[in-house]
Structure formats: structure tokens, C-alpha cells
């Protein structure tokens, strides 16, 4: 596979109720990424976005973002999933050989709509919606209990993930202010409001406003733009069935298969030793542990024993992860940007030492039904 490089990025600071209109926030992210790479509008040859019509309150919502997203009179398309999936589409456009620069942008503003009601429309209209038993939160409750009981993991073990990520978020100036908790304790997490037993409020990645953008270029062009592009050396993606009753919620099979595909492409044989940083899109704290196991960073049921702090054996979510702010559609793209910062040594305040290989994931659906994983290398570090 020809090398494709990440040559620029920008993330708007996350906010629970941002003082932005939708278009200006998208513009800030896209213009910010173009400026970061020192490029111009005319350098853009393709634009791929990830938003959701329901979240945007408009159908075919990308038709309104032509100017602000950089897509004016350009090759443009949209993915109704996570930004990490939009990047996959952009990667394919670059690999087609027809493009020199892809803009990938993604994000939404949950301050404008009832997020949990919107998620309810994700449930099956004939089976599940009438009884309203399944919501995005109760699905997380099912998943957390299934994982805890299968492996004897305690709620404290899962609360430790929250403490780590919220403390990491406190060092990340772009994280959601409400999620930046430098002094958080285990008992704060366990005693926060109960959402769906055993999930408590702080174990849930709070949806917030945010947009992020990232630029891709083919190898020869990437090297003209920057001295330290980050190379995509592997990508894998996979999809579980929608119906929760079809799945073993104590593990995540789609992430296992996505990881295998990405690792094969990047020739990674021993992920626990080869990978230095993992930025994983965890909608709930326990998902970080399930993903770490699915990706071979820990044995099944043992992820809670990992030393996954910024100075640990393998740093997981040094940026704070989605627990540091979860802008729907942008979360996975932000994980990729954070992994890029780590590889380039630009994660000010939460930089992991000596990063050579990083992974970043995005997810979509109830209990992380669909997962996508990237292996990233380079960055001049």
C-alpha cells in the first residue's frame, strides 16, 4: 500500500454549550487544519465529513457545509458515522491516486438537540422503541455488568479508568472543562449519580459540542508539506450485529477483528510490546478495558491491572479519551489527532516519552457495535 500521511489537524476546544453556530465551528476546525499545514483552499482536492442528519437537524446535512468545510467546487462526500470512518473514506480517495489533499472533518453540537432522545431513534422501531427498555445508557449498563461478572472485575477497577482519564483531561487544554478533574477520587466516581446500574454519571463519556479536522496526503506530497508526517500503516474495521441479544457483551468481537486487520497490515505481532500509545474511543469507562483486551494490550479480563497512565507501560488515552469530552461524530477523529500529537511530540502537558507506534480507534452504535482502528507511525519522533 502506498503511504498516506496525516499532514495537519485542528480541534475546536470542547464545550457543553458552545458559543458558536454550527458553520463557524466547522470553519474554525477546517481553516485551522489548513493553516496548521500552511496550505490554501486551492490545495484541497477532496473533502469527506462525518455528521448525522438527526444531530444536525437537517437532511443531507453536508449540503449546507460546502463553503465552511472546504468543499466549495470540490470533490465532496459525507459519512453518517464517526470521523474515523470519514478518514477511511478519505484514505481510499487518496489511495485511488486521484487526490493530493483530503480534508476530513467531523463533529456535532448536542447542546442544540436532545441527544439521548436522538439515540433512542437508533433503537429498533418495532421491537425496542415501544418498550423503551434499551437506550444508549441502559445498553452500557448491560455491557458493564456482563464484563464485570464474566471476569470478576470490580466497579472500583472501572472507576480507576475514570480517575485516570479525567486527570489526563485536566492536562489537555482542549478537553471539555467539566471533564477536566485534576482532583477526582475513586469515591467521587462511585458516588456520582447512578445512570444505569452499575454505570454512574462519571463513568459515561459526556456528549458535548465539538468539531475536529484532519488532512491526508499521499507520500510524495505529504513530504512537501511537512517534515514530520504521521503515516497510516494499518487500518481495520468491523461490524457486530445491531441486536444486543445477538452479542456477547463481555467482549467486543468487532474490535477484535478490526484490530487483527489493522495489525496484519502494519505487521504488528506483539501489540502489548510494540504499541506505545493507544487512544481509544470509550463511550463508557469499561469500554476502554474491553477494547484494550480486544486489541491484545492485555489478556482477557486483565486490562484493569495494566499500568496505563501517561508514564505507564502502555499509555491509554493520555489525552483523557472520550471521558474527557465526547462530541458525537468527532470523538474518533480526535483520538486519531491525539495519537498524531503523541507521535510528533506535540502533546503539551500529557506527552508520552519516546512514542514510535500509536493506535487510535473510533466507534459507532450501541455497546460499540462498529469499530475502526488505525495504526499510526512516523511523526519524526
Amino acid at each position, binding site marked *: 500500500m502506498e503511504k498516506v500521511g496525516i499532514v495537519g489537524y485542528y480541534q475546536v476546544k470542547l464545550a457543553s454549550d458552545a*458559543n458558536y453556530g454550527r458553520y463557524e465551528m466547522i470553519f474554525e476546525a477546517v481553516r485551522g487544519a489548513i493553516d496548521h499545514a500552511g496550505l490554501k483552499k486551492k490545495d484541497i482536492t477532496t473533502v469527506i465529513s462525518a455528521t448525522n442528519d438527526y444531530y444536525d437537524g437537517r437532511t443531507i446535512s453536508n449540503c449546507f457545509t460546502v463553503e465552511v468545510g472546504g468543499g466549495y467546487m470540490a470533490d465532496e462526500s459525507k459519512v453518517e458515522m464517526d470521523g474515523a470512518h470519514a478518514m477511511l473514506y478519505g484514505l481510499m480517495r487518496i489511495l485511488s491516486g486521484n487526490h493530493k489533499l483530503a480534508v476530513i472533518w467531523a463533529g456535532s453540537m448536542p447542546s442544540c438537540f436532545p441527544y439521548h432522545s436522538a439515540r433512542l431513534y437508533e433503537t429498533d422501531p418495532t421491537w425496542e422503541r415501544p418498550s423503551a427498555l434499551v437506550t444508549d445508557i441502559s445498553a452500557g449498563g448491560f455491557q458493564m455488568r456482563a464484563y464485570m461478572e464474566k471476569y470478576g472485575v470490580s466497579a472500583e477497577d472501572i472507576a480507576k479508568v475514570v480517575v485516570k482519564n479525567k486527570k489526563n483531561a485536566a492536562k489537555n487544554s482542549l478537553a471539555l472543562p467539566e471533564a477536566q478533574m485534576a482532583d477526582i477520587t475513586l469515591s467521587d466516581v462511585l458516588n456520582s449519580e447512578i445512570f444505569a446500574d452499575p454505570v454512574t454519571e462519571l463513568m459515561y463519556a459526556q456528549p458535548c459540542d465539538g468539531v475536529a479536522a484532519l488532512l491526508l496526503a499521499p507520500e510524495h506530497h505529504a513530504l512537501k508539506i511537512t517534515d514530520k508526517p504521521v503515516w497510516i500503516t494499518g487500518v481495520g474495521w468491523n461490524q457486530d450485529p445491531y441486536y444486543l441479544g445477538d452479542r456477547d457483551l463481555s467482549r467486543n468481537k468487532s474490535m477484535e477483528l478490526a484490530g487483527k486487520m489493522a495489525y496484519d497490515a502494519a505487521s504488528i505481532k506483539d501489540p502489548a510490546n510494540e504499541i506505545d500509545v493507544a487512544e481509544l474511543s470509550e463511550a463508557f469507562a469499561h469500554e476502554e478495558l474491553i477494547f484494550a483486551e480486544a486489541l491484545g494490550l492485555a489478556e482477557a479480563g486483565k486490562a484493569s491491572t495494566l499500568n496505563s497512565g501517561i508514564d505507564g507501560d502502555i499509555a491509554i488515552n493520555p489525552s483523557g479519551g472520550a471521558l474527557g469530552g465526547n462530541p458525537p461524530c468527532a470523538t474518533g477523529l480526535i483520538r486519531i489527532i491525539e495519537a498524531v500529537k503523541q507521535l510528533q511530540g506535540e502533546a503539551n502537558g500529557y506527552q508520552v516519552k519516546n512514542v514510535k507506534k500509536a493506535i487510535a480507534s473510533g466507534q459507532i452504535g450501541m455497546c460499540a457495535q462498529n469499530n475502526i482502528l488505525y495504526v499510526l507511525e512516523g511523526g519524526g519522533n
Partner: protein
Amino acid sequence: MSKMTRRKSMEYIKKEYARTRTMPASWYLNSYKYKYNVTHMKPFLDKLKEGKLVGLQCSNCNRVSFPPKLVCGNCLIKPDRWVDLRETATIATYTITYLKDEATGKIIEKPIACIRQDGCDTTIITELAPEINYEDAYVGMPLKIHWADNLEGSLSDIKYYDVIDDKSKDMALREKK
């Protein structure tokens, strides 16, 4: 980072000022009509009316789904073999939700569970008997179906599940009423 010239176009956007107004608006998606197939459901619902449980088995991979699935995702074919299921089941996982009643503002505690009916490979998301103390519930807990008083041939015929001590007493398939 860049070899090329930096632009300054971002600077104005950093200033703090009230740059938004909000306009309330509605989006009438509630009026959607969902069309769905019932062909694969009919025998299942007919059996419920008789107080019997059946799962739908894929004749290729032998996976049994309950409730029945239109298509086996594993094989991309329509499962077509009906198999009788026992009345006993097991908790696969459960959670307790706390939802605010919009009318009264009261928080309603609502336990819900994924339950695996014995003899099938999928779980059904439903409720347990109200008298069950959830502090005592656990994954793997044995259960037995509690039928509604009047069977109508719909999913609501499964009122909820009762806890049982010993599944061996319920090994026989339910006799026709």
C-alpha cells in the same frame, strides 16, 4: 510543523463575543410509518398465543434465535426451522435504569435484563418479576417465564420472568393448554 508560510486568518475567531442566537425549531420525525416483515414472526406469535415458545433456527449454521430473526447474518439466508424452547431461561446480563417520569418528576427505578431462553443462542431484553430483589440478582440466575393472564399472540404475552431454584423441575416442554 509546516514548511510553508503560516496564515493568520484564525486570529479574529479567537475573540470572545456573543456570536450566536438560538432559534427554536421542530423536526416532525415522530410521524414516520415503519413497515416491517411479519412472515418470520407469525408462527412465533401464533405459538405465543398457545402459551408455547419457539425459536427460529438457521438450517445452515444451526444458530437458534429467540425472538426470531428475518435473516441469519452469519449465512445471509432466511432461517426456516422452528424449534421448541423450554420455559426456563438464564440471566445473561442486567442493569437498573433510573428514568424520570415527565408527568410527576419522580425517578422510576426500572430493572431490565438480557435473558437467554434455554435452547437458543440469542437473548431477549425484558423485565424480571417485580418481587425480585435486584441486590440478589446475578448473571447466570435461573428463571422461568411468567405468562400474561390473557394470551394475545404478541410479545406482551411474556409478562416477565420469575426466579426458580431448580431448572430440572421444568425440563418438560409446556403441554398444550
